[in-house]
């Protein structure tokens, strides 16, 4: 299954980057979101995947023993998901502002703004 996931992640990277390289403002946002998801998934995969053993200590036990999913990558990814949301939200609003203010929908036209002002 890991190989399938690795290929999937590569595919997500490719899709995200391809969209970021487009000229359209909206595609940039979509690409950013896909890329963010891909990174999280990559981290998750590399941390090692385990089926059906969540890192939760049983009611009667005092420590996690036996086979269990690694809690550390999960903690990291949880942080990463939240942060990438912050980034995406900010990017979306910022680009929308840019569109409303400057009427720019083509990223290539953003270039000229500096020089005119």
């Amino acid at each position, binding site marked *: *299954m890991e190989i399938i996931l690795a290929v999937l992640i*590569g595919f997500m990277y490719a899709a995200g980057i391809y969209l*970021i*390289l487009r000229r359209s403002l909206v595609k940039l946002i979509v690409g950013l979101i896909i890329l963010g998801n891909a990174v999280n998934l990559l981290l998750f995969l590399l941390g090692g995947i385990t089926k059906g*053993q969540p890192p939760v200590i049983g009611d009667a036990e005092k420590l996690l023993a036996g086979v269990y999913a690694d*809690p550390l990558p999960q903690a990291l990814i949880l942080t990463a998901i939240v942060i990438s949301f912050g980034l995406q939200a900010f990017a979306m609003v910022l680009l*929308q502002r840019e569109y409303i203010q400057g009427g720019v929908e083509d990223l290539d036209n953003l270039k000229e703004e500096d020089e005119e002002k």
Partner: protein
Amino acid sequence: MLTAIVVCFTTALIFAFAGKYLGQMGTYLISLLPAGLFLYFLSLQSELVSSGEILLNYSWIESLGIDLSFRLDGMAQIFALLICGIGFLVYIYAAEYLKNHRHIDRFYGYLTVFMGSMLGLVLSNNLITLFIFWELTSITSFFLIGFNHRDLLARKAALTALTLTGGGGLIMLVGFIMMGQVAGTYTISEILQSGDVFADSIYLGLIILALLVGCFTKSAQFPFHFWLPDAMRAPTPISTYLHSATMVKAGVYLLARFSPLFDGELYWNEALLLFGGITMLYGAINSIFKTDLKAILAYTTISALGIMVLMIGIGSSTAILALLLFIVVHALYKAGLFLLTGALDHLTGTREITRLSGLRTKSGILFVAGILAAVSSAGIIPALGYHGKHLIYAAAMETDLLSFLILSLIVAANLFIICAGFLVGIKPFTGRPNSGNAPLHPTSLLLWAPPLLLGVLGMVAGIFPSYLEAHLLIPAQTGITSVESTAHLHLWSGFDPVFWMSFFTVLGGVGLYLLFRPSHRYSNQLKSLEKISSRYLLEQIIRGTKNFFYFITHLLQNGYLRYYTAVILTFLIFLIGLRMNLGFVSDHQMSFPVDFTFNEIATVAIMVISIFLAVFTSSRIVAVASLGGVGMCICLLFVYYSAPDLAMTQFTIDTLTVVLFVLLLKKLPTYLTKVDTGLNWRDLVISCTFGAMISVIAMEILLTGSVVEGISSYYAENAYQLAKGKNVVNVILVDFRGVDTLIEITVLAVAGLGVFSLIRLHMSVDS
């Protein structure tokens, strides 16, 4: 000695700020500084003579062998006295010359920094500190040449000078570092005693080359000479001080300083003879074809510097003695001529030799100063210049290598130098008064006294030469070559061959002066030769460099965001590919997985379809919906692989993202319909390659990488026992790594603030 230098820099700093308020009084006050320093160095004279050298050492950067180490020996003493002595005259002269100038405070600030650096340069006993002072003189020179900063040509000249002298200095630094590595120390006095270490080193050739480039640029040797005539755009006191009497001699100083080490090695002597000779002749011939007094003097200075380098190239005891004497002689008469030029400029408002004549009645006292300087320049008995010429001829006759050729070249150059000296010192005063001149300004004491004083000094020292020789020249000469020179200074040494040579040179020079009429015609003709000069070459190189980087900058920094991303990614691909090319750790023997369930495969399939939709759909709402699909599938994957917390977070966040996107969608532009197939293919290749690389790396890590044991198990064991929580992930986030989470929340809060303010922002429309 450190005190002397520090005093210069602090005074400069104080004057730069307080100079405005001190006014004219301040300029007189600051002139006391070089006078005081002159007396200070004089007071060290007796100690110097008895002990041979005075050493001072302050540790600075010990680990790199860089010390504030100073050494006053005979040669440094000569330079220090010249720097302070002529410095004093220039200071008081400039007080009158630049009276009421707006930026007089700056002027004295730069000048004092320069004086401090120059003193530091000749006193340094450490290569690196010497280099620092060396470059400081280049930088102050830049500011002083461009002092009249509204003058385009002055700015250009300043830049040329800085490019050449500063660049040469940098090349020299390379040589210094190699020297330090070879000798194992940066202390100059120790390097000079390291003997054969250099002769055996394979770096010897490079060291000599770097040293020569540094010194030749500083001392305006051919083909780096052209910055010096340009530098005459500076106010005359600056030209006197920096570009004639002191700074340009720094290269000569350094060559002389290291000549004991390199004399007789490889091409050292030959290079010095060759370039010194060319410079000497080139400067001399050019000088008399100029019509601007300062340009004439600039070229004779170049010529004189050539003679000095030539003397170091000969390298015998007599030659070194001749060099040291000539440094003093030249400083005295050339400074005198320059100051005279400034005074004439002040008097008549022009420096054009064709417009100056018959001034003897108007300013007799300047005429006296002019005659004295011209006589010394020509080497007519009994001026000090006579002794200088005498020793130079004697040294040239002693050489066994090309003696006749060198001698005849020196004689030829001297003919022109004598003529040029007369042109500046005497020509403006003779002949009929020029009626076309502007009304004359009266010359004040401070303008005529310094050149006159220099002239008288040269005459007095010439009449009693043994005093100068015993106290300054011999200690300095024996410091460089261990053998004391057999030649000595006598006011009258009989009718020996040297005398006759001197005599006929003077005769020839005066004859040339009487026959030659300066005119614009010659200088214009010379200009047409500039196409093949080194200046033209340098300008072409600079222009070429500028255009090249203009092109590169526009290529790389073109302002297109996508382009930047593409370049960064391509470079990354290249880098990762390079590493992958080295091979993989794992053996790629991975059996096709069969451990998956239908649910997993279905989830992945949905994801792939959603991503395809998100990429290629032309409807924005479909793209957003697909995004939601992708997010939910990831959420499912988290559930499959034992990460309930991640699944919950992903679910929440993904929902939020989609909701936000849809809310904003109304005010976002529709998809662009522009299609550029070529670009699409390029981007497709880039992104697919990058994605494939990520896949390969991920597999490589999965096959070989091992998670470091210990960290996770620590959390697993202690989550309940220490933190009383059963959900380990939660415990890590809120307890073990609580501060991290706090910072994360802060980041999110900042992003939230940003989003909020962007939404609420009602930007006033820019006019």
